[in-house]
């Protein structure tokens, strides 16, 4: 647990250093995530301790959104002023995104597997 947490932080730290050092647009944790994936591929497997730690950390993933979410109180005025564009953009945009992604993937799987069968 302690070892895995340390490994996660080291990957994040290396990610942050790369992001800052090369002025990359990609946030540090995402680089850390990609590096960890590469490390797991090289190692050909996930250590048990790492699996336990990751599962524990991701189990209540949504809890981690709460402190930032409470930041809504700072933006109440803006949300009140622009409630119409924000609400319509979020609701309609999200429905469109789910629908278009699903249709694109379904269509591509059909194309792709038809080619594979032939």
């Amino acid at each position, binding site marked *: 647990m302690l070892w895995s947490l340390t490994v996660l932080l080291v990957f994040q730290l290396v990610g942050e250093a790369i992001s800052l050092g090369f002025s990359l647009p990609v946030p540090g944790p995402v680089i850390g995530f990609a590096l960890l994936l590469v490390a797991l591929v090289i190692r050909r497997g996930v250590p048990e301790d790492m699996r336990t730690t990751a599962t524990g950390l991701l189990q209540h993933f949504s809890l981690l959104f709460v402190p930032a979410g409470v*930041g809504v109180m700072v*933006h109440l005025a803006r949300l009140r002023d622009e409630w119409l564009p924000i609400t319509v*953009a*979020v609701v309609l945009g999200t429905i469109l995104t789910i629908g278009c992604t699903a249709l694109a993937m379904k269509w591509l799987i059909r194309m792709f597997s038809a080619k594979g069968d032939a």
Partner: protein
Amino acid sequence: MSPKLTDIWVYLSTTPLLGLTITLLVYQGAFWIYKRANFNPLLNPVPISVAVLVILLTVTDTPYQTYFDGAQFVHFLLGPATVALAVPLYPQLGKLRRYVIPVVGALLVGGLVAAGSAVGIAWLLGASDTTLLSIAPKSVTAPIAMGISEKIGGLPSLTAVLVMVTGVTGVICAKYVLNFLKIDDHAVRGFSIGVAAHGMGIARAFQVSEEAGAFAGVAMALTALVSSILFPLLLWMFGQ
């Protein structure tokens, strides 16, 4: 309140302990309700916790910054948690390789529709520039969306709120949209929820099936990776 109680309150309200403890207590209460309601998407614990905390802070006249001094310890975990997403992704690499063309294609379509529809609709309805820049990465997972927002000139904290509202909307709507479109492949259902509704979509997809959850995880990770490269690039190309 007796003077003694006031003294205790004055002391406790300035330590990080209170903000951290209250966050954990409120979230667990909200999660208990969510569980009792059989994971009904309308009772997602995040918006409920946020609403309760905002009311508590407003009533006690506590500034957000004071609260965040304590809650930042939870917030901090978003970084290592993002790195940890590589762990559930690893066992899916084989399946992912077989689906590589549909996944990449759907990712590009979904990512463009997510950002394009949000910015387009908000712009048509007269949103301000700050709101437009903050709403663009709304379908990307919170830590990365906030990073993107900061890089392109939005307000990270406003983005966090919009990401959260998007997550809740996606979790509520997904089932109806996907049933309407007659999508029955769980890989496709999970992937589209993950592209549109990030971490909250993953949690929801895992309740449907392992396959849906895994593909939602892949979708969130890839959306994060591609968005964090494409957004600043697009902004740079169109010159602010």
